[in-house]
């Protein structure tokens, strides 16, 4: 040790705690006491719940429960709808009007399962009206299955089923549905149903509204994103339907998406206030360019076309369109109703209405009464043809049997002759005879067939 004196003092046992240490201990005790008192006060004093919420990171909210349950604050400028809604967690309200739709539900749910837009951001709204089949029961069953799915990505957001009967007098079968006379009142009733569904389910947190018919057969899984990317106020794809081969394989289905034409405007001026122009009927020749007819199977699916009337099979619209009052007129609005009137009204309010001519979804093919008749006829013809062929075959067999003896006789004779010929060391002569013989039998059969045809 270099300094023994210092060392000696360092290792001396302390007689008492130094003054500084004592002071510090006291301070710590006082601080702890204050902290405990403050904490205690927090729990005891009323109206200081915020202390607790700070410490518990807001997990224990005490007095604001009443407010939380009953008061809501929404800033509508946060739900405008953008081109990449799935990244900004924008909610979509998916509306499906249903009537006697039981047979189509399975198909619809397979589409719902496959949608790629995050399911928890989609609220489903169904309107079940005037249904005589088990639409409602099947719908509930399927929805419950969907919500209980093992895949955590399957369940949807809020699901509402609205039941309302409008006392529909119009039949839903294909013929009466598409007959010209029934169109105006049918469209007005459809419009009413759509408005009821929307007004009961649209909420301030929805950014988009998607209308989808239940009877869409084929559609891209990414349809929501595909349509949203265009960032238009209202956008519709092209709707076609597949057809049996004898009808040409495919056909434009939705003729309600069109551009306005001068002819139609002039026509509209001549019509009565309550008249409704419907597309696709000879009664109103409007000469409008239809979205459906402009399809090119190899065209750019992102190509846009400005339209004035929209079809209702698949409409994606920003919720602000509906919020600002645009709806499906259940009256004659500028001589149009329902979805066509919706397009007209949206245009009137300055919104962009766009169709995608080369982006196609496929509507279910339901044969019309005429088609069914035609198909029945075809079926009959086919059966008749088959029967005829069968008869023919039988006849041939019979003939063969009847003439079988002669045939064998011929054969016998042939071989004898052949033998004779062989004996005479000539090969070809016998073969020729056989050929001409068989030719003869065929001819006679043909003649017989013709005779039969003439008889029948």
């Amino acid at each position, binding site marked *: 040790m270099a300094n023994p004196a210092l060392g000696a003092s360092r290792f001396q046992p302390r007689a008492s705690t130094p003054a500084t240490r004592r002071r510090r201990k006291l301070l*710590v005790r006082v601080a702890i006491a*204050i902290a405990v008192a403050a904490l205690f006060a927090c729990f005891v004093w009323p109206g200081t719940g*915020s202390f607790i919420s700070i410490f518990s990171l807001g997990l224990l909210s005490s007095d604001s429960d009443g*407010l939380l349950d009953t*008061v*809501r*604050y929404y800033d509508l400028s946060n739900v405008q709808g953008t081109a990449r809604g799935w990244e900004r967690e924008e909610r979509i309200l998916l509306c499906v009007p249903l009537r006697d739709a039981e047979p189509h539900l399975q198909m619809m749910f397979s589409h719902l399962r496959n949608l790629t837009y995050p399911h928890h951001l989609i609220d489903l709204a169904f309107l079940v009206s005037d249904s005589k089949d088990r639409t409602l029961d099947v719908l509930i069953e399927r929805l419950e299955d969907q919500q209980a799915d093992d895949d955590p990505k399957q369940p949807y957001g809020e699901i509402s089923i609205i039941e309302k009967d409008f006392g529909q007098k119009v039949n839903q079968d294909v013929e009466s549905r598409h007959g010209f006379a029934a169109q105006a009142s049918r469209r007005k009733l459809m419009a009413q149903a759509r408005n009821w569904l929307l007004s*009961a389910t649209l909420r301030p947190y*929805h950014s988009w509204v998607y209308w989808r018919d239940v009877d869409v057969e084929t559609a891209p899984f990414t349809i929501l994103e595909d349509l949203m990317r265009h960032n238009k106020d209202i956008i519709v794809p092209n709707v076609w339907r597949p057809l049996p081969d004898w009808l040409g394989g495919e056909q434009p289905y939705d003729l309600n998406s069109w551009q306005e034409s001068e002819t139609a405007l002039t026509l509209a001026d001549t019509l009565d206030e309550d008249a409704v122009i419907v597309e696709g009927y000879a009664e109103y020749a409007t000469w409008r360019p239809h979205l459906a007819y402009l399809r090119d199977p190899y065209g750019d699916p992102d190509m846009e076309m400005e339209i004035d009337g929209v079809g209702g099979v698949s409409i994606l619209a920003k919720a602000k369109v509906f*919020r600002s009052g645009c709806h499906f007129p259940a009256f004659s609005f500028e001589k149009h109703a329902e979805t066509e009137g919706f397009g007209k009204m949206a245009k009137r309010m300055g919104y962009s209405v766009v169709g995608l001519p080369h982006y196609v979804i496929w509507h279910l093919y339901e044969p019309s009464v005429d088609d069914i008749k035609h198909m029945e006829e075809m079926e009959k013809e086919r059966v008749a043809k088959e029967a005829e062929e069968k008869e023919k075959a039988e006849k041939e067999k019979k003939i063969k049997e009847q003439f079988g003896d002669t045939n064998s006789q011929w054969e016998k004779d042939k071989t004898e002759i052949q033998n004779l010929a062989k004996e005479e060391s000539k090969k070809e002569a016998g073969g020729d005879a056989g050929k001409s013989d068989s030719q003869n039998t065929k001819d006679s059969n043909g003649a017989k067939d013709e005779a039969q045809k003439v008889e029948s």
Partner: protein
Amino acid sequence: MARPMGPVRLRRTNPVTVIIGIVLCTFIIYFLSNSGSATRPTASKSRNANSKPVPKSNLAHIRRDVQRFNLNHVTITKDPIANHEAVLILTPMARFYQDYWDNLMKLSYPHELITLGFIIPKNKEGNAATTALQAQIAKTQKSATNKFRRVIIERQDFDPPLASQDESERHKLENQKARRSAMSKARNSLLFTTLGPDTSWVLWLDGDIVETPPTLIQDLASHDKPIIVPNCYQRYKDDSGKPAERAYDFNSWQDSETAQELAAKMGPDDLLLEGYEALPTYRTLMAYMELDEKDDPRAEVPLDGVGGTALLVRADVHRDGAMFPPFPFYHLIETEGFAKMAKRLGWQATGLPNYKVYHYNE
């Protein structure tokens, strides 16, 4: 002096530092909690209110049940209280008036059947109105009694049109279209996002209506009309200082032939407005109607245009699509256009000339 290698031993903490730390912490916590509750109560309310409905990814996998609503069972009758019919009171609000709120609280219709909906523009004045409104709502909704079933506050997603404070008549007429178009959009936004599946009646009540009979909802509903509008008056002090009242809302009227002729000559985007000298319509205004039964508050008149200061509408009418057109609809806009659209859908408006509500007097 050279130090041997090894971990640096920190200097002993000065007790003064500890004290300062504790004091600071106390202050921070104090101010945090204070700003949350006492000094700016509205901020906390809006934060709280916001926390639940806004979709967040952590809510992604909450499984929601299927909700069923049978709208066939929603009744709309003369006697709404007996049938427990839900009423939606909608108020587009530019400024908050305490008298409005007090009057609202006095309504004798059971509050647990009433949903309130407000829409407020996003400007300075609107922020002030929101703050004042939220303070009142917080007071009411925290109390155990007289609580409303639900309160929804919305902020407009579009800018209010440039508010020209110029009182010049000509200027006003030109501005009227933009102003009322924005008003229509605000009304529609509020209506279509708050109309629930179980709503039976919608009462439109402007933010500057400061006096109504407490039985307003029952009285109007008892007429069993699809659209019914009381007469809107304003109380003031006349030159001699005596209290008097004068007609305020001129949007409730019966159409005239002159007005029809004027409309026929107009372009599709022109408006036929009421109360402007440039457009003499000679419509019969409910505000000045002289009835034989002067004192009967139940006297009814059919109307072609309605005002929106106070207006009771069957929910059906709105559900069918009757809205406040933000564009000229048959040369009419907003509430007047609404009456026309409802008529096109088969619903007739009715006025009560002797049943009065009172507008705030500036």
